[in-house]
């Protein structure tokens, strides 16, 4: 058996993970037709062990295996040319451990060595380059974009990131919840939930039903808040200012309700390993319901007015198109992938019992343009509100406390993984413990890690002036990618 099978939010014995060869790996990836969610190394005495995690979204299972590199082996034959979705993973592994994937098509730095970054170049008449960043015009995170254009048309966009690299994975070896939720400050609940679930799996803690429900309410509220904010930002970028201001203030209603739950507008301090720190009282539950009802009314009204305007539609339709084929090749995940017709939502794929009980379905759009991504957000906002109403009902029946006693005893020699569907897509946290139960490797994969290349593909053959609109429709994370 080349692979160990495990469920989401569970752990296995790290010593039982088999070691396979690169040819076996290539053959298995080809036959199993699964997508990678983890591809990271760990120093093991003088050797380097490469862990590979694949997700089986149909069955809701995760497959783990590993490869062992002796100190004298400094290269292997790249997987990217056969399976392009490995491209970033291989670049990351090369950057961290210096083992070269031979014949990788674009083995460029991912987070380090920015001074030596080899940009693509284009030559010819009327060809010019536009360099933007790392500091952008708006109040956003840093990243460098280089457009290769002919006139106003973009041929290609190259994205160089790494400015946000804070060494988060190294810090996570001495983790706490406050650090986990600060790694990517717009997906506070998603990150904190993934981290807490990994820790709970490693220390065999079973949290209360009530805490599980409150966590999911917060997760969906985060989704609603950010999606509404992004709908406003998309409206702003195509100069429909009424949309920008109405969506902007509507988002305030949602995050201020979050503040009433836990004292922070983004849900910081809510989740801890072992449960949650704040309860939702019946009065607060009614308040959440009535706020969300109002919010949905406003969003409905505004979106309908906006989507009737030909000037809005013409800016969004057929702008920034990513086909389903491209999205699958790049291994895109989350809401951006769903907008291109990829059937992927870890809330449903990995059989979360709270989502299974709820009569909702995955939202999938097929055109892959800005319009699809706007519309998908709009649909997901409504869906999440329905789901929260459902959860608030279930909250009444589950009164088993909000936090259980925890200790810091992690099971030695274990490998645990948690996939949480944040608003952007799957947040994957993996942790490995050593002989005395200490953390020896903590790996984070943000959905943006897969999706940045999708943005580069989206702007091809578009006018350069449409870039802000395309960018906002994805709203990818810089710090989630750079860690």
């Amino acid at each position, binding site marked *: 058996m080349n692979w160990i099978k495990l469920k989401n939010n569970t752990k296995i014995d790290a010593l039982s993970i088999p070691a396979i060869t690169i040819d076996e790996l290539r053959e298995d990836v080809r036959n199993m037709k699964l997508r990678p969610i983890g591809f990271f190394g760990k120093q093991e005495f003088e050797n380097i062990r490469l862990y590979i995690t694949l997700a089986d979204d149909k069955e809701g299972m995760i497959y783990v295996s590993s490869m062992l590199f002796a100190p004298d082996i400094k290269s292997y034959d790249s997987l990217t040319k056969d399976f392009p979705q490995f491209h970033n993973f291989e670049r990351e592994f090369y950057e961290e451990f210096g083992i070269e994937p031979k014949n990788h098509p674009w083995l460029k730095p991912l987070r380090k060595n920015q001074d030596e970054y080899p940009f693509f170049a284009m030559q010819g008449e009327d060809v010019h380059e536009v360099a933007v960043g790392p500091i952008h015009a708006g109040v956003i995170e840093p990243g460098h974009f280089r457009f290769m254009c002919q006139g106003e048309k973009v041929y290609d966009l190259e994205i160089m990131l790494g400015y946000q690299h804070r*060494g988060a994975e190294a810090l996570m070896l001495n983790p706490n919840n*406050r650090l986990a939720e600060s790694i990517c400050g717009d997906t506070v609940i998603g990150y904190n939930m993934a981290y807490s679930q990994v820790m709970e799996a490693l220390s065999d803690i079973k949290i209360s039903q009530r805490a599980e429900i409150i966590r999911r309410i917060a997760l969906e509220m985060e989704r609603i808040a950010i999606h509404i904010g992004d709908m406003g930002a998309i409206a702003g970028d195509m100069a429909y200012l009424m949309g920008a201001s*109405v969506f902007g203030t509507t988002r305030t209603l949602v995050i201020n309700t979050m503040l009433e739950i836990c004292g922070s507008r983004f849900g910081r301090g809510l989740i801890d390993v072992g449960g949650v720190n704040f309860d939702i009282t019946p009065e607060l539950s009614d308040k959440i319901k009535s706020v969300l009802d109002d919010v949905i009314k406003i969003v409905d009204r505004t979106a309908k007015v906006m989507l009737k305007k030909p000037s809005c539609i013409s800016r969004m339709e057929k702008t920034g198109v990513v086909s389903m084929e491209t999205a699958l090749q790049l291994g895109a995940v989350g809401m951006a992938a769903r907008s291109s017709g990829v059937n992927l939502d870890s809330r449903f794929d990995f059989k979360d019992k709270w989502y299974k009980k709820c009569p909702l379905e995955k939202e999938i759009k097929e055109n892959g343009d800005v319009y699809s991504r706007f519309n998908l957000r709009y649909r997901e906002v409504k869906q999440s509100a329905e789901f929260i109403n459902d959860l608030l009902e279930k909250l009444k029946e589950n009164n088993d406390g909000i936090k259980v006693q925890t200790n810091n005893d992690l099971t030695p020699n274990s490998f645990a993984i948690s996939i949480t569907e944040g608003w952007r897509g799957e947040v994957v946290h993996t942790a490995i413990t050593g002989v005395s139960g200490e953390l020896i490797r903590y790996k984070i994969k943000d959905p943006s890690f897969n999706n940045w290349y999708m943005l580069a593909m989206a702007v091809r053959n578009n006018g350069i002036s449409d870039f802000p609109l395309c960018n906002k429709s994805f709203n990818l994370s810089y710090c989630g990618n750079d860690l």
Partner: protein
Amino acid sequence: MLDTIKLKYFQGKQYIKDIKNAPMREHFRGFPVIKSGDVDCSCCPTGALISNPNRIDLGKCTLCGNCKCEAIQFSNCYKLGSTSREKLIISENMAAEDYEKFAIESRKEIVKIFSHSLKLRQVSAGGCNGCEMELNACSNCNFDMGRFGIDFVASPRHADGIVITGPITKNMAYALEDCYKSVPEPKIVILAGACAISGGVFQNSTELNREFLGKYPIDLYIPGCPIHPLTFINAVLDLISN
């Protein structure tokens, strides 16, 4: 067209009229109220809590509430900004009202030049997008910072100062300094958020380069994790007005 006018009608007026005395929800964790007594310093994720006598360094504090006990409570007072790093250390029995009075000392030359118009360039140097989102919120219809003449501009050449968020990563150190140098004199520097002031939860990272802060004067410290828009706007207003 009619639909848009209807939308505007439903939207009504959303702005907070009196931003200096805006009510804050009681759940907000703001200014800490500290008494003497036993505290557990090990629960603080950033080392902001110091015992004997009990103190909290707002420059490090993420206002997470982990340390809440008899001796430490958090009020909903949101005016946390200060013009000096030392004043951010809150000692026992300090009242929020007293802190507000002495924390920000506006300087004559800043008031003279910037009191009617302050254009800022924001630099995210490793920020997690929390403070960035809240700074964006400062300009939305609710908080509407633009009415006081305070705005974020696209280029440092147009700016009167910079706002730094994030713990300042090695990879952003050069761009940050470059941006600062591009701002014409006279200029101010504002540190927004626990990460910018002290490194926050990332203070032990080896990937930071905080030399910038030693080289140039800092005019305003705004604590929070992330900063609340009311904290930011009030601190800046106090800095540029008498």
